[in-house]
């Protein structure tokens, strides 16, 4: 049944999951987004919106001021030495600078909004079947309250977030995760959480609603995606402050240039013996505005909001919902990653790998007996014994008719089968089997003890098999490492993170697996208290700890961790305690979160460095131009050999404007993070964005000047 449902979903014309996936993989400049973003760029010119971005607000004021000069010149009252066309060109580019900045922000917002919109479409109103005693009443999903018990059957959509209190079901969560393979959700365990909008494919479950209408996970997700546009992280606030301060500093640099240029004009007028005052661009207000705009960090000022939104966006694309942008940002600073052994580092369960006989038996016999004993064993370990025996001996396990299975219990700590002939076959922990054999009147063979110890000491679990009073041999159960984990841990190590494995195993087993997997440290026999204590201890040393968890007993540790990622499949308590939720329930996602966090900071740092380094070249273009009318010998500074003073200033302004759209892709995609170690990474980025930031504008400004001359636009 489950399978058929999946096929059905796949055949539907446009399932919500597809919509979501499409929304998530939008092309950078998808036409559907650029249009509204362009419109929004104009809307954002309104001062009360522009004001939120101090750097660009200054540009807007400058553009407006220049507009006044254009009008003055158009009315024929210009006192300037330059033609009105220069003013108009200048003003157009100043407005374009603001518009480019607004466009970058609007585009990032549009991408976020498009995602929110596609999420919203999946949140359709559904019928909820509320349990009232034994009766069922049908109500709208919008009327659900926390604590309501809801029955959901195969083919029905779960009406709201909740926890399964009864039953087990396979659930299609593609509306949320975009992943079409169904997942199993069941009551009681750590896989009891279900999300509104997902669909039950098989069986019937009873769900207790944990979020009222409008507070569901999907609602919150939409709110977060849209909220990312407005919420600023601490680092972003600090950077905005620095950028504002730089704007103020450059205002301080530019404003006194007016009286200083006046000083030079006065002097040259008298030096040349002129009766009328000589004028230079240094006392021309629009030109000084242009200089100011070129100097203030417009590049990063324009892209800062986009970088932040794009960071949240990237997290969402990785199917991670962060409760705040801060959580993603902090992820970049993580020092220690706590990972559960089971399901993260190793495959979910231990598997049989070897059959070791004691004196007088063969491996084949051990395997056969163990397989018979496990034939009805539904535990993964039991199943693995059967499957490995069958694949080794290429024969199916045949259990005689009338065999009686003895299930594992915590008191006996063994399981097995009683065959019709009275044969009792058992498998279990070494001491439990030893007791069983003694009770049957047998004795443990001399070579058993070293065999068991040998297996245990290499981190595997020995399972002793007995046939009545005789001990036959040992089944070796081993943890199977997930593929490519070692590489992932190496990557984490290169990123400067320490990985710690958490396991309920004894220290010996834990140490072995830790070594095999390549984690840096482990926490054995971990109880919830031990996890909490471990995190607290590391935090007391100033370290930032990331943790992934799904169970209710993980909740305290999740709440304590700096970055706590709960799995979507996990319990509500875990999801509440964490500051982000992984929709794919993939424990290795932490690596991606850390990379997204690092990328976010790197992109900000790189573009800020670039923006400020750019100013050097602009000075070399503008200073000689400002004083060409009074101190023509400053032409020596004009190492780019620009055509004329006005073309020099326009080239600088144009470069300053068009670098913004050119860098939008970098802002949205982020600067690529390579785990090289801090020093190498810094060297690399300093060269690209620092040195590059000094050199690129020299080339860019010269090119723009050449183009303007080529098109006969330069005066």
């Amino acid at each position, binding site marked *: 049944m489950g399978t058929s449902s999946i096929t059905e979903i796949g055949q539907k014309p446009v399932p919500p999951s597809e919509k979501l996936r499409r929304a998530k993989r939008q092309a950078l400049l998808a036409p559907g987004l650029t249009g509204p973003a362009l419109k929004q760029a104009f809307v954002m010119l309104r001062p009360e919106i522009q004001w939120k971005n101090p750097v660009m607000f200054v540009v807007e004021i400058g553009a407006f001021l220049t507009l006044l000069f254009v009008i003055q010149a158009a009315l024929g009252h210009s006192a300037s030495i330059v033609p009105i066309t220069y003013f108009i060109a200048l003003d157009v580019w100043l407005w374009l600078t603001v518009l480019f900045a607004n466009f970058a922000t609007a585009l990032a917002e549009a991408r976020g909004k498009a995602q929110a919109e596609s999420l919203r479409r999946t949140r359709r109103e559904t019928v909820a079947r509320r349990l009232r005693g034994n009766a069922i009443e049908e109500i709208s999903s919008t009327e659900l309250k926390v604590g309501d018990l809801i029955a959901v059957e195969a083919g029905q959509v779960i009406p709201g977030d909740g926890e399964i209190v009864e039953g087990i079901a396979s659930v299609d969560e593609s509306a949320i995760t975009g992943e079409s393979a169904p997942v199993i959700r069941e009551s009681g365990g750590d896989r009891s959480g279900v999300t509104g909008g997902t669909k039950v494919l098989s069986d019937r479950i009873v769900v207790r609603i944990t979020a009222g209408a409008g507070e569901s996970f999907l609602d919150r997700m939409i709110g977060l995606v849209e909220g990312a546009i407005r919420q600023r992280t601490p680092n972003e606030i600090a950077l905005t402050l620095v950028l504002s*301060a730089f704007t103020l500093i450059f205002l301080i640099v530019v404003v006194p240039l007016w009286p200083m240029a006046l000083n030079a004009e006065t002097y040259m007028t008298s030096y040349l013996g002129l009766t009328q005052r000589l004028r230079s661009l240094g006392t021309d207000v629009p030109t000084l505005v242009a200089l100011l705009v070129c100097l203030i960090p417009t590049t990063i000022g324009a892209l800062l909001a986009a970088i932040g939104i794009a960071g949240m966006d990237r997290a969402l694309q990785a199917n991670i919902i962060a409760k705040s942008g801060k959580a993603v940002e902090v992820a970049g600073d993580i020092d220690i990653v706590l990972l559960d052994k089971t399901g993260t580092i190793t495959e979910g369960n231990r598997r049989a790998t070897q059959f070791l006989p004691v004196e007088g038996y063969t491996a084949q016999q051990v395997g056969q007996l163990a397989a018979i004993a496990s034939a009805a064993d539904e535990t993964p370990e039991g199943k693995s014994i059967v499957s490995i025996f069958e694949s080794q001996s290429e024969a199916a396990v045949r259990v005689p008719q009338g065999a009686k299975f003895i299930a594992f219990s915590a008191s006996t700590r063994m399981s097995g089968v009683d065959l019709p002939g009275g044969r009792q076959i058992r498998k279990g922990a070494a001491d439990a089997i030893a007791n069983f054999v003694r009770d049957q009147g047998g004795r443990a063979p001399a070579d058993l003890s070293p065999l068991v110890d040998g297996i245990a000491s290499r981190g595997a679990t020995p399972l002793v098999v007995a046939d009545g009073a005789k001990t036959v041999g040992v089944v070796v159960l081993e943890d199977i490492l997930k593929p490519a984990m070692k590489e992932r841990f190496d990557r984490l190590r290169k990123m*400067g993170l320490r990985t710690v494995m958490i396991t309920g195993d004894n220290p010996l087993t834990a140490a072995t697996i830790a070594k095999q997997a390549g984690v840096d440290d482990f926490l054995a026999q971990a109880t919830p208290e031990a996890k909490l204590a471990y995190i607290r201890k590391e935090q007391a040393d100033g370290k930032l700890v990331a943790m992934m968890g799904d169970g209710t007993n993980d909740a305290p540790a999740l709440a304590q961790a700096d970055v706590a990622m709960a799995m979507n499949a996990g319990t509500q308590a875990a999801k509440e305690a964490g500051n982000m939720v992984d929709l794919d329930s993939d424990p290795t996602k932490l690596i991606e979160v850390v990379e997204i966090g690092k990328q976010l900071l790197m992109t900000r740092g790189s573009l800020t460095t670039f923006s400020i380094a750019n100013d050097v070249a602009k000075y070399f273009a503008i200073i000689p131009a400002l004083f060409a009318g009074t101190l023509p010998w400053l032409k020596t500074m004009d190492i780019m050999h620009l055509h004329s003073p006005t073309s020099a200033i326009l080239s600088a302004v144009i470069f300053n404007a068009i670098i913004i759209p050119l860098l939008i892709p970098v802002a949205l995609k982020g600067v690529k993070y390579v785990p090289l170690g801090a020093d190498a990474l810094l060297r690399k980025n300093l060269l690209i964005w620092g040195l590059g930031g000094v050199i690129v504008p020299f080339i860019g400004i010269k090119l723009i000047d050449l183009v303007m001359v080529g098109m006969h636009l330069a005066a």
Partner: protein
Amino acid sequence: MWFLPVAIIVFTIIVAFPLSKYMTKIMEGKYRAPGIVRWIEERLDTGEQDWKQYTIALLVFNTALFIYGYVILSLQPWMPLNPLHRGLLSPTTIFMTAISFMTNTNLQHYSGDQHFSNFSQIFFCIANFFLSAAVGLCALTGIIRLFRGQKKIGNFFVDMWRVVVYIFLPVAFVVSLVFVQQGMPMTYRSAYQVNTLEPTAMGATDSGQAKQQTIVVGPLAAFVPQKMLGTNGGGFYGMNSAHPMENPTALTNFFTTFAMMIFPFCLVLMYGRMLGRFRHALVIFAVMLVMFIGTIVWAIGFDTLRPNPGLTAHPDARTYTIADANAPGGKRLLALPAVAGLPVDQHLGNLEGKEMRFGTSAGATFAAITVDVTCGAVNAEHDSLTPMASVSPMVGMWLNCIFGGKGVGMINMLLFLVIGIFIAGQMVGRTPEYLGRKIGGREMKLAMIALLVHPIMILMPTGIFAATTWGSGATSNPGPHGFSQMLYQFSSASANNGSAFDGLGVTYGFYNNTSPAPEAKQWDIATGLVMLFSRFLPIIAPIALAAGLGMKKVAPFGPGTLRDDTLTFAFLLGGTVIIIGALLFLPVAALGPLAEHWGPFPFGG
């Protein structure tokens, strides 16, 4: 030529290592003072202070120092040790001078030998030399302790005592012995009346008798060592360290230069020792040293290795086009004819305004060093440096962190460091951190405030004065050179440097002066206020910054952490200083020295 600067730098570095160890010991309180000294120290100890109390103590102390200075100078005519009957200085000059010495600037709008009695020289100047220098050192010590995470950072008054009594006094005593041996005057006498060798040199009286020369003297060997060691730089004579009694020989010049460098050098190392981050301090030291050598090489390269452009030939006639709307065609041609050189031997470089007894490169070397360490003493006329060479001292004042003044230079460097880490340090993909502590919004706000002060205090007043007669009425040259004079004056005031470009009419003189320089009052008040703001905001804000940063949790050092003791970090730090410095001051550099250098009128001709 190169021997002098190399010898000075090497010698200072060699002394700095052990001396900084001694200073660390003193500031850490790991010493046992002898009897009476300890008794006084115990009386001064008002108990451990937190950063706010420490800062308030610092400000109260400075207020007291200002009042003390103002009173001493105001009472000069009635005080002893004044046989030459020096009168009362103009009130604005007293205001400016009291601030100037309190802020460790020592910009002088008076001439020591003409306006000060020995009483003022001793009780005003020498007192301030010790105390104002110690203030900066204490501020740095406080910041270091805050960085270490201490909540209580010691007692300001005990720190002052330690610096003055255990550090400055012994070193000053040793240096003064060298100076006395070299013939520097050390006397309570105010002047000698002597007959000149050439009888008519000083003119004749009405009765035809040859006039005697008055040679002003005083306790110079006590005055000069701390003037230099405290990077004060206020001269006993108007000529400062160019005067033959303030700097008699090439050897005293060597030690004078050494004395002003030694503590700034030591403080960087002390920073590393007290924080337990010596390698990090060495990286900062190296960045400073490279810039330090750069300014010296620049000054020597453009002043000692090149002839005076005012005397050399300009064989090519040049023509410039100047846009002028009023001229026909909107353009005006400015033709500069070829100029024949003067028949002068210039192989020793530009000799105008130099004291040759110190050596050919001594003037340029001293000029660069005195601004780098914000001392402000001069042994040559900076006004007479070639225009391009004068960029070197200006850059020293603009950056204000190439070793810099007592403590404050290091503090300024920390500001650049924090800003550099915040901007470029993010490129390693972590929230920027310094000393393992995350740099947040509050820290950046304080750092930017402290950074803002310096350019505001230089550029705004220079602009105002340049456009009005306050400036043009005071400059001795028109055009770019005059602009440089104004620019230099405010740069010197804001950097708390105290050297003067000279050429500005800023001296009012005595209160009963009948013909004071017309704009002197404006200059007194403007530079006074500039010195005040530029001194204390960049001390208070970094202390608050360090207090906030110090309270944060220390993140452990890991492979993903930005390392602050590598060559890469040195480039980051140097790059930050140079790029920010260039962005702030390149326009004024172009208007002043660069325009003069490339223009047709060397030296404002």
